[in-house]
């Protein structure tokens, strides 16, 4: 039987005489129909009905329930009318390819073969004419699945297709195919048996030379080794068990905070290692002469001043000369014994290059993370269908504890009810006075928030001026007084940063946004605005040095100390916030209010605190090269403290939280205001600010950037052949036209992408219309089949 599938026939006149379903088309006219197909089916069906009656005893699950009343197939069954045509139509429906594609082994193998062949760009599959019966799902509607002879033939066909693949691809495909392990093993057995039969060797594409067999063995061996290595790496990750515990009790939302913390830790370790190897370790090996080291008191850990001032921690310690220079004599007069290799090390150049390299590498890593998570969380046309996504994807299978599972069920129930209520509300919109009231409340809340930000900024400004006066007054006092005055400004700023988010939460409770998603965004916006504006003011104060560090000779060390104090104070206040916000609140809830509820873990506020701390580190790297090490210690301690507090005191948040979407938002926030702001600050400092005269690696120069220019000139002088090298800084970095060109290219790429997206939206709409039309066709055909059977019943 090698017929082609399409058949053109006339529709018999008498099928239209019942007039039950009027059709828009004139069906008396000649058109291609499936009448012969239906006749074929009916003859097969008569045989299939007997088989079905036999099977009914054996497989109760193969019985089909009547379609749900909501199904709009047009097959509304009249009660009590159970003619065999109806049951058979249902059976045909059950065997439709769209329903069995997930379960039929032949169809699954076919689909995966197609995908593999397309991926590896092999020639396409054998054409239709050569296949009598095929396992391809689009053509399977000819035969009922119940035909055992056909199903084994379909299997054989798919096995043949599998054999035509080379062994490496075949094993890779077998790994990916969604069948059970037993079936995969039996497939492999059958394939190896078939390979050994000589008749089929002509069909298989792999040659029988031992060289190819060796190659396949090597590839398979390498792949096995690689999978084993990946498995080992996966379990050797730090904090694997702790993260699993957290995910098991609280779900993916709280887990995303700890994953963000881990990412920040890795970034800081990377910066620290870079600085350690190229700057800190070398300076430690060649220490400069220190005037008189101050005695160590315990307060240095808090203030960063005192004996820490002239240490590796700060900028002022680093020398401005070439270390280990054979031509220079050391200041103390001792000449070092001549060594076999003398490697001079230009400290100023190393300092500026290492800081530049660490910023550049951090930028690349952050952009890669954003690209990676943006690709995962954004899809074209993904704005609709919230309810369906919530129903299918809301259940977090990681959660294993009984109480957490119950809590998750309650949360999902609440969220579903809220979404349904929101939808009902949207269908009956608010009246005009209610809307006006809502808008006024929103405006007032925003005005209040912006007003508080402005108020905080002005307060910080006046407070720092006041502290400056106090500092000058306390210079004559005791050491404790001096240190205390230094700590006042960081204390106030951290206090504001801790208290204001709670105030914004109260504001949000009064405001009552429409959707919980909007609430989170508004809260993040306000908190971020406050933190960034205050940091902006502090940066301006540090660089202008009118208020802070105005009297000091070595202002960079002073700024570095200030930043160190900010970092330490931020850590202390985070601990206090955890203690009071979580521990104390839980005790109050338990003992006083006697409620079973624990305080919720506020993910957004905690992540913003992490971003703030990281911004401080990036701002301070130029002035205190060991600041990333301090941040690493701080993050390590923070992980364990937060985890302990979470386990003891908190429960997971009840508001819906799209973990991967919010992770993308947080990484973007880390990059855009935080990292870029710090990079702009550091670039401005390198480019335009005059370094101090008496300390640090850039003393005496006009700007830090001059180091690079001096070096390039030195290179030109020493070797005239590479004079072209000076072309790069002159024309690329200092010339603004190149930057304009780059900006133009980026804008053009963005514009093109927007147009591509619009085209994709249009295509999706067209395809959805086409699928809806196919559904209409299906319903039409089913109605026709049913009417034919009923007609046969009447005639019989």
């Amino acid at each position, binding site marked *: 039987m090698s017929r082609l599938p399409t058949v053109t026939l006339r529709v018999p006149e008498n099928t239209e005489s019942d007039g039950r379903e009027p059709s828009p088309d004139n069906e008396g006219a000649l058109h291609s129909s499936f009448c012969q197909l239906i006749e074929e089916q009916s003859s097969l069906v008569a045989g299939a009905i007997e088989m079905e009656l036999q099977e009914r005893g054996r497989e109760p*699950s193969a019985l*089909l*329930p009547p379609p*749900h009343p*909501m*199904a*709009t*197939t047009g097959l509304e069954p009249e009660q009590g009318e159970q003619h065999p045509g109806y049951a058979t139509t249902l059976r045909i429906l*059950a065997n439709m390819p*769209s*329903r*069995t*594609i*997930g*379960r039929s082994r032949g169809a699954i193998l076919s689909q995966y073969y197609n995908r593999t062949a397309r991926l590896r760009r092999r020639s396409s599959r054998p054409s239709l004419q050569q296949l009598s019966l095929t396992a391809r799902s689009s053509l399977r509607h000819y035969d009922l699945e119940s035909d055992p002879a056909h199903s084994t033939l379909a299997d054989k066909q798919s096995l043949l297709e599998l054999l035509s693949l080379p062994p490496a691809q075949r094993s890779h495909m077998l790994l*990916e195919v*969604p069948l*059970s*392990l037993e079936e995969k093993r039996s497939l492999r057995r059958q394939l190896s048996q078939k390979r050994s039969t000589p008749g089929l060797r002509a069909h298989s594409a792999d040659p029988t030379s031992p060289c190819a067999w060796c190659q396949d063995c090597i590839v398979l061996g390498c792949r096995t080794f690689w999978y084993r290595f990946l498995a080992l790496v996966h379990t050797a990750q730090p904090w694997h068990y702790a993260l*699993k515990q957290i*995910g*098991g009790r609280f779900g*993916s939302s709280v887990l995303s905070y700890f994953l963000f913390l881990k990412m920040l830790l890795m970034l800081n370790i990377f910066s620290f290692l870079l600085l350690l190897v190229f700057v800190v370790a070398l300076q430690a090996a060649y220490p400069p002469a220190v005037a008189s080291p101050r005695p160590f008191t315990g307060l240095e850990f808090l203030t960063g001043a005192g004996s820490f001032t002239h240490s590796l921690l700060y900028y002022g310690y680093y020398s401005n000369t070439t270390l280990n220079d054979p031509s220079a004599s050391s200041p103390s007069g001792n000449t070092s014994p001549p060594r076999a290799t003398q490697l001079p090390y230009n400290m100023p150049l190393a300092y500026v290059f290492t800081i530049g390299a660490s910023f550049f590498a951090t930028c690349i890593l952050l952009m890669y993370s954003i690209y990676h998570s943006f690709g*995962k*969380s*954004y899809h074209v*046309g993904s704005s609709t*269908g919230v*309810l*369906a*996504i919530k*129903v*299918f*994807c*809301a*259940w*977090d*299978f*990681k959660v*294993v504890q*009984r109480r957490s599972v*119950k809590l998750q*069920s309650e949360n999902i*129930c609440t969220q*579903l*009810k809220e979404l*349904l209520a929101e*939808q*009902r509300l949207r269908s009956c919109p608010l009246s005009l006075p209610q809307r006006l009231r809502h808008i006024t409340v929103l405006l007032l809340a925003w005005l209040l928030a912006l007003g508080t930000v402005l108020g905080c900024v002005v307060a910080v400004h006046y407070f720092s001026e006041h502290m400056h006066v106090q500092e000058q007054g306390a210079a004559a006092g005791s050491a404790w007084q001096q240190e205390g005055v230094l700590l006042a400004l960081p204390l106030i700023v951290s206090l504001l940063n801790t208290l204001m988010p709670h105030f914004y939460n109260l504001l949000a409770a009064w405001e009552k946004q429409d959707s919980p998603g909007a609430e989170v965004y508004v809260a993040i916006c306000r908190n971020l605005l406050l933190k960034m504006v205050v940091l902006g003011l502090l940066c301006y104060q540090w660089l202008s040095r009118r208020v802070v560090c105005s009297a000091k000779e070595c202002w960079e060390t002073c700024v570095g100390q200030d930043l160190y104090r900010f970092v330490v104070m931020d850590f202390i206040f985070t601990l206090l916030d955890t203690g009071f916000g979580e521990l104390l609140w839980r005790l109050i809830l338990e003992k006083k209010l006697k409620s079973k509820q624990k305080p919720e873990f506020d993910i957004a506020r905690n992540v913003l605190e992490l971003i703030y701390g990281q911004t401080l580190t990036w701002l301070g790297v130029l002035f205190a090269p060991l600041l990333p090490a301090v941040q690493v210690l701080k993050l390590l301690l923070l992980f364990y403290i937060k985890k302990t507090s979470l386990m003891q005191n908190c429960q997971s948040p009840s508001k819906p939280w799209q*973990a*991967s*979407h919010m992770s993308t938002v947080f990484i973007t926030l880390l990059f855009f205001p935080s990292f870029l702001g710090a990079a702009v600050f550091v670039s401005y400092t390198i480019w335009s600010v005059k370094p101090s005269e008496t300390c640090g690696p850039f003393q005496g120069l006009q700007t830090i950037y001059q180091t690079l220019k001096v070096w390039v000139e030195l290179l030109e002088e020493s070797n005239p052949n590479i004079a072209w090298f000076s072309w790069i800084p002159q024309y690329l970095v200092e010339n603004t036209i190149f930057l304009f060109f780059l900006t133009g290219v980026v804008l053009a790429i963005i514009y093109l992408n927007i147009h591509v997206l619009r085209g994709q939206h249009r295509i999706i709409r067209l395809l*959805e219309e086409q*699928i*809806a039309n*196919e*559904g*209409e066709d*299906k*319903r039409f055909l089913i109605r026709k089949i049913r009417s034919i059977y009923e007609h046969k019943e009447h005639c019989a």
Partner: protein
Amino acid sequence: MGGSSSLLPQEALGEYQANPFQHRICHVFSTSEDGDDSMSFEDFLDMLSVFSDAATSDIKSRYAFRIFDFDDDGVLDGKDLEKLVNCLTGQGEEARLSSIEMEQLIRNVLEESDIDKDGTINLSEFQHVISRSPDFVSSFKIVL
């Protein structure tokens, strides 16, 4: 858990998880001919492999579809969705949705995901819905 010749009955697995889908998971992954949904060691490996980090979104969505298909007819119709929502919201009486809310929910879900408008959600439509949610892969995971 024993060697490949021993079977893990459903009740024993119930102690390990408070998951409301535990019966469906056992049913889907079990290849025993007795129909008692017990799992051999290979079935257990299959289950862990599908729920692991390394499984692709395609494999996870196929098995998720089979788990959610409570009557095993190859599509998700209204009754399947109703049972699914009841599993999600829990067994307590106050936690369930009222019948009006349930109808509204099922109607909306079918409207959003049923592209060919036949009143049921087949595997391709389910995969289309899943592809729009980036959280699915990370939540359809059991960590060992």
